[in-house]
């Protein structure tokens, strides 16, 4: 079975530009979460979507937005890029909404490495 896939794998942008990152969850998984991992740190939660609805949002500015499509794939959009947005962006999927219990295991994709110049 295919795992979580993300595209593109690498991306270089300049300050002020916009970026769209894409994620396809494991087949049958309805929940998708996004994380930002800055070099040398642990991942930080950005968003979670379940059944196309936003279920949680981390402490990120409104420049960050996301959506989930009917096939449960997801996009993360970042506007007005800053140098500090350079990071590895991870997508994770799980079968159910995390609100059903925190023991839900998340399955991570390989990430998209974004460099903002």
């Amino acid at each position, binding site marked *: 079975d295919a*795992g*979580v896939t993300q595209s593109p794998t690498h991306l270089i942008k300049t300050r002020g530009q916009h970026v769209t990152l894409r994620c396809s969850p494991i087949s049958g998984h309805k929940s998708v*979460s996004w*994380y930002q991992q800055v070099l*040398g*740190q*642990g*991942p*930080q*939660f950005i*968003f*979670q979507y379940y059944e196309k609805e936003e*279920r*949680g*949002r*981390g*402490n990120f500015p409104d420049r960050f937005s996301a959506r989930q499509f009917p096939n449960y794939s997801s996009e993360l959009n970042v506007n007005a890029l800053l140098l500090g947005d350079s990071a590895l962006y*991870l997508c*994770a999927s799980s079968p159910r909404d*995390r*609100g*059903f*219990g*925190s*023991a839900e*295991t*998340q*399955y*991570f*994709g*390989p*990430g998209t490495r974004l460099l903002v110049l």
Partner: protein
Amino acid sequence: AQSVTQLDSHVSVSEGTPVLLRCNYSSSYSPSLFWYVQHPNKGLQLLLKYTSAATLVKGINGFEAEFKKSETSFHLTKPSAHMSDAAEYFCVVSEPYSSASKIIFGSGTRLSIRP
């Protein structure tokens, strides 16, 4: 408030010797605790998780962790290190029936294995 602290940013051991990666947590409730491993240029992989069942949890690749409520610890161990264990390890805490924003990753421990 919920938090997680990985006590060592870098651990180096010789191949064949025991591994100990330390994690302390803080939570207002009975949390779920996870250990994930991240190999270079690879996604995060679940090693094991604690969900209020047995306090000694066995995971993949010979790793195990013991939940100690009195010490608020969830240390990861392996009896004998292998070269392939070299990676970044993250301890994660999650509170029950909480929003997704209540998932907290530690800052990570880089494990190096000496031949």
